[in-house]
């Protein structure tokens, strides 16, 4: 490890501290505004003088609970499906010898490189033709294949100690048992990392849910929050901030709980 001099360390700390402030100050302003009463929203003081939960009450008065439920349920189902498919596909790519294996894996990698916006319209058309428009199916199913997850887990499975797999084979385990009883329990960090990435990506998704949902009962939280931006005029900033605060919490929570595992995972797979 390179040892830095005191002065370069001081400069480094100053730069990171500045960057942290640049990111944290707006977040803090959002969170603090969420607790301000309506007349206070535009006051110069960043913190509320009379903290109130009024904004949160107003939020839930306009079916915010429905958005929250849609977001939670579809995110959990989608992430579970993504991880399941990624685990199975990664095992096949890592452990089976079959024709066109490398070509197929190259396709998976290729899919990583295609921008989402490019495939959105054709998938949208398919979703509509399948009759899934404005349903959870539209939010979940088109996103179940997660090339990044397949790639990440395959790399980890390739590095999995072969003697453990051979021992399990000699002990009488089938491929299915080897995967679920031996490999997956030892891939906690990799799977935790994948869950975080997938969770945050899904939770924060804005454009796709906007495209494939229409009714209020199918909207997700990110779109729901927007209602306060367009329709209710100036006095809706408070609820908007409350919504943003609430919407940020799950992703932050997942990240903080599992952050060490994420770092380990990405460092060990060579992605930083």
């Amino acid at each position, binding site marked *: 490890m390179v040892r830095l001099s005191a002065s370069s360390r001081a400069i480094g700390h100053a730069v990171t501290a500045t960057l942290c402030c640049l990111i944290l100050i707006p977040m803090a302003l959002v969170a603090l505004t969420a607790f301000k009463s309506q007349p206070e929203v535009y006051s110069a003081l960043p913190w509320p003088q009379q903290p109130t939960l009024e904004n949160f009450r107003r939020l839930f008065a306009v079916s915010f609970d429905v958005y929250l439920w849609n977001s939670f349920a579809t995110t959990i189902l989608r992430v579970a499906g993504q991880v399941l498919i990624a685990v199975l596909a990664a095992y096949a790519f890592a452990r089976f010898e079959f024709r066109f294996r490398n070509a197929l894996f190259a396709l998976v990698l290729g899919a990583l490189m295609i921008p989402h916006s490019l495939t959105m319209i054709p998938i949208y058309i398919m979703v509509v033709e399948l009759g899934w428009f404005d349903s959870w199916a539209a939010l979940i199913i088109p996103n179940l294949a997660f090339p990044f997850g397949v790639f990440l887990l395959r790399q980890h499975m390739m590095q999995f100690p072969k*003697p453990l797999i*051979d*021992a399990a*084979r*000699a*002990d*009488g*385990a089938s491929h299915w*048992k080897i995967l679920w009883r031996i490999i997956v329990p*030892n891939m906690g960090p990799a799977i935790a990392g994948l869950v975080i990435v997938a969770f945050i990506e899904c939770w924060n998704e804005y454009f796709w849910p906007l495209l494939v949902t229409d009714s209020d009962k199918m909207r997700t939280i990110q779109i729901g929050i927007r209602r306060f931006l367009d329709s209710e005029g100036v006095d809706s900033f408070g609820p908007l901030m409350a919504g943003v605060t609430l919407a940020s919490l799950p992703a932050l929570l997942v990240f903080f709980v599992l952050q060490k595992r994420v770092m380990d995972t990405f460092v060990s797979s060579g992605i930083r």
Partner: protein
Amino acid sequence: MAAITITCLSKTFGAVKAVDAIDLTILDGEFVAILGPSGCGKSTTLFMLSGIETPTGGRVLFDGDDVTAMEAKDRSIGLVFQSYALYPHMTVRENIAFPLDMLKIPKTLRAERVARAAGIVQIGELLDRRPHQLSGGQQQRVALARVLVKEPRLLLLDEPLSNLDASLRHAMRSEIRRLQRRLGLTTVLVTHDQIEATTMADRIVIMNRGRIEQVGTADELYRHPANLFVAGFIGSPAMNLVTLKPAHGEIRVGAAAASLQDRSLASVTVGLRPEHLRFAAEGLPGRIALVEPMGREVLYEIETEIGVLRLLDPVHQIRHREGENVSIAVSPDNLLAFETEEGRSLPLTVHASGPEVAKSLVRSESLP
């Protein structure tokens, strides 16, 4: 328990022949060690016996039944790995019970068999620990318990002792041997350590470059190595190998002489074990080049007319200093001869032995 027959077994990885058409028979209840240098194909052979590697040619029979195409899980084998391969997320108890779980053995019976296997290797008190909380020796025992719990008909050990320290290795060596005797388990051990092979196995298979060089007891391999490879590989310190030109079909080292059956050979390689050489009043003259005290014995490197010879003196005191002139003698019964080119062993007839110094050494040249 099972008798194993291997016929014409081969394994190629791309262009590399890891195992090259080997034949071998292992008797029921026998302990066989496969010994050879790294990359000689010994582990590949073991993994083909276990069913983990699929042979590219040949057959494997267990008690006369062809198991070549059979999956590892259906062969009733127990395989112990060099790294022990304990499942890190399971406790010792779960590790040992895992094969029984795979065999769908009822839970009540499972607990009983786990306890019995743990008892055999004396790890009863470790059952609730996880592998990372165990020492190397304890992990080794757990690995053994995990294979014994299945009551396999064949026990396969892939360098099981190489990760242990010297004293533990010694203890585990005799323990595995005792266990194997007691259970009468047909066992195949793969190792690169000749002490491990000679102390544990009934018979030893010497492998080199994917082929079997010789099969025999430790004594047979030591006394009658079939070729130069085995001669050089078995014995520690390694055998002295010197190239001599026979005179009228006779080779001489000091006063020891022996006749070759083939009198036409222009050159032979003579093998002399360091422990068979001794200092004598008269014999092959030489000068001490190096003295290596080994504790109980002293190893001398001596420059002679026929090349540099190592002599293992069973006396722990250093009797000769570097630079000193000495004479070396060897009993003619201990001479071994090999074809220089092909390396095959040559039969010798011993016909002369005496104290007089041989002056008839024809030409000398030491092997590298």
